């Protein structure tokens, strides 16, 4: 990423690398559909869910939480201060969900039969809820994104219609997407004996919900810092500090839930003697939750863009992503006699899909009024004459 920032003006290395990764991914996908899953993944009967479920589904959905958190902060809680970051957050969430959908179409053994879930519902299956949430929330996000497109095309009537239903739409989006975060946790409730007791708890859906709410603003800090470098879209320090406070506030709640949950289950001793599981727990909680809480509240860190970036990154990587990997793969017991490490093709698909999403983000930011300041510049340089500023 840093490389991308520095070389942007000289030669588009970033775009080149992203394109290469995206095309590699496309090639691997041909292999997947021609020869089948077994030919190119290391998944087995012992480990039926691999990298794609852990990374693309579990992390992908959580990291797209910025869409609903920011929409809630701005449009429901009416905190106008954060208005400038809503659209990038919703765009990220939308692309994130598209990525999830694509990954699922790769991971499913029979993706061409996905419509069967509509006609053969099993309302007791948490995955059934997950499936519907993915479909509905992707549609909601598309609608939430649509004003940017309509503004660009200057379509006034659709814009007015969307404006009219905006609040119900956003609230529906919040209900669906938080339900989605919960249900990803509910899916693990069946793994009563295979998920390590340090992580298995009946309240895992609630833990998923709270940690996802916290990661939304953290992702905005993370992306805002990066896109500030790439697109010159600067977000005010005040917004960053405020978002940091929101993250740390929610993380305190999350931390209390995690510790009290282990205590109530009477498993505090596991934190000290269930090596090596406990090491993962400590890394996750201390490095990914406690440390960000401290960092976000140090005035010196709040003043430094780098400091905020690192604090957000710590939570995103160690607090959230590591947690999702642990519960969906690392400490979920594998059948005896099997081992699993993703094949290069599995990595290529996961990384390639992210590359596609990043390029789509780049294109969307260039073409659509996502960040206000940027479109003004763009309009001037592209058309030579200033265009009417879109009212976002």
């Amino acid at each position: 990423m840093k490389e991308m920032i520095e070389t942007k003006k000289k030669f588009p290395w970033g775009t080149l690398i992203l394109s290469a990764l995206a095309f590699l991914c496309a090639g691997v996908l041909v292999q997947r559909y021609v020869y089948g899953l077994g030919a190119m993944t290391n998944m087995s009967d012992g480990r039926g869910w691999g990298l794609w479920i852990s990374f693309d589904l579990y992390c992908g959905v959580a990291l797209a939480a910025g869409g609903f958190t920011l929409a809630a902060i701005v449009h429901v809680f009416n905190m106008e201060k954060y208005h400038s970051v809503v659209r990038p957050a919703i765009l990220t969430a939308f692309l994130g969900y598209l990525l999830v959908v694509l990954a699922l179409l790769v991971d499913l053994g029979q993706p061409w039969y996905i419509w069967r879930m509509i006609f053969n519902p099993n309302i007791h299956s948490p995955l059934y809820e997950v499936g519907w949430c993915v479909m509905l929330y992707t549609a909601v996000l598309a609608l939430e994104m649509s004003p940017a497109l309509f503004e660009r095309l200057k379509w006034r009537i659709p814009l007015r219609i969307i404006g009219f239903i905006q609040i119900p739409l956003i609230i529906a989006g919040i209900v669906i997407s938080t339900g989605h975060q919960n249900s990803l946790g509910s899916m693990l409730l069946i793994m009563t004996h295979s998920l390590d007791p340090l992580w298995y708890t009946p309240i895992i859906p609630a833990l998923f919900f709270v940690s996802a709410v916290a990661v939304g603003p953290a992702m905005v800090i993370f992306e805002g810092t990066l896109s500030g470098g790439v697109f010159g879209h600067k977000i005010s320090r005040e917004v960053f500090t405020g978002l940091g406070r929101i993250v740390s506030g929610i993380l305190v709640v999350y931390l209390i839930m995690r510790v009290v949950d282990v205590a109530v289950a009477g498993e505090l001793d596991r934190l000290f003697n269930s090596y090596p599981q406990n090491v993962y727990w400590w890394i996750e909680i201390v490095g990914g939750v406690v440390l960000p809480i401290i960092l976000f509240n140090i005035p010196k860190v709040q003043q430094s863009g780098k400091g905020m970036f690192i604090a957000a990154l710590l939570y995103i990587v160690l607090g959230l992503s590591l947690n999702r990997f642990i519960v969906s793969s690392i400490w979920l017991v594998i059948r005896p006699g099997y081992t699993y490490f993703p094949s290069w093709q599995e990595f290529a698909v996961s990384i390639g899909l992210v590359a596609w999403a990043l390029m789509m983000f780049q294109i969307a930011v260039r073409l659509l009024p996502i960040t206000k300041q940027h479109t003004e510049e763009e309009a001037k340089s592209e058309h030579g004459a200033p265009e009417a500023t879109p009212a976002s």
Partner: protein
Amino acid sequence: MAYGVLFDGTRCIGCRACSVACKSWNENPAVIEKTPSVEGGIQGKAVVSDKTFTFMRYKEIGEGDDFKWAFAKIQCMHCLKPGCETACIVGALHRSSKTGAVTYDQSKCIGCRYCMVACPFGIPTYQWEERMPWIRKCTFCSNRWNEEELDHVPACVTACPTRALQFGERDGLIAEAHRRIDESKAADPAGVGKYVDHVYGEKEVGGTAWMYISSVDMTELDMPKLSEEPVTKNARTAMGTLPYYATGMLILMASIYFVTKRKQKIAAGKHEEKKG
């Protein structure tokens, strides 16, 4: 009413006729190990797979005079509260309350493999080598027997030469299992008997159609140690709260919106007043 099978480890001689019968009835090909191994003793590295619905697990237990071979027939346990059934997004896995068989319907399946992850016994397997793969597992030979013709018992049971496998109504089998354990205890002057006093599968994860009694604890044969609570319980509870969650969240968000909007308007009004 549901049926089950009782496996008696003290009667089993490890002949693997059950495995052969299973392969034969389900027309599953033999799986030849590319690199023969002695891992796991005489059985090699046997696992259930899309071509092997059942196999005999061998364990060498104890040393010297205590040494014994122990066997366990591994296949789908046909749980009374199957994790796979609750997990399946499309209801392709279904337990028949009449027969007790948990069967799979590929005309519903989408290939998500949640059942494989959800199964506490690690039973459902996948056709990894196929371009269009389906789930495969023991069917309890439900395509073979029905309630009217109970003589057509599962293929593995018919093949057993020592009656280590006994097919019948589940309740009857539980009684029979306890009878055997108690009789053996009574016959033993020390009062111990040849069995471990536990019917594996009677209560595990809410009960299973396949049950085991043996001279060793079944966990020594790598059967998972499970509690009596069905694996489906927490997930079903969570799914049951869904309508309340959605309604609550909807009301909460709507009220927050109206409250904050109203505050904003009042603040704006005050601002106007000052200006005026």
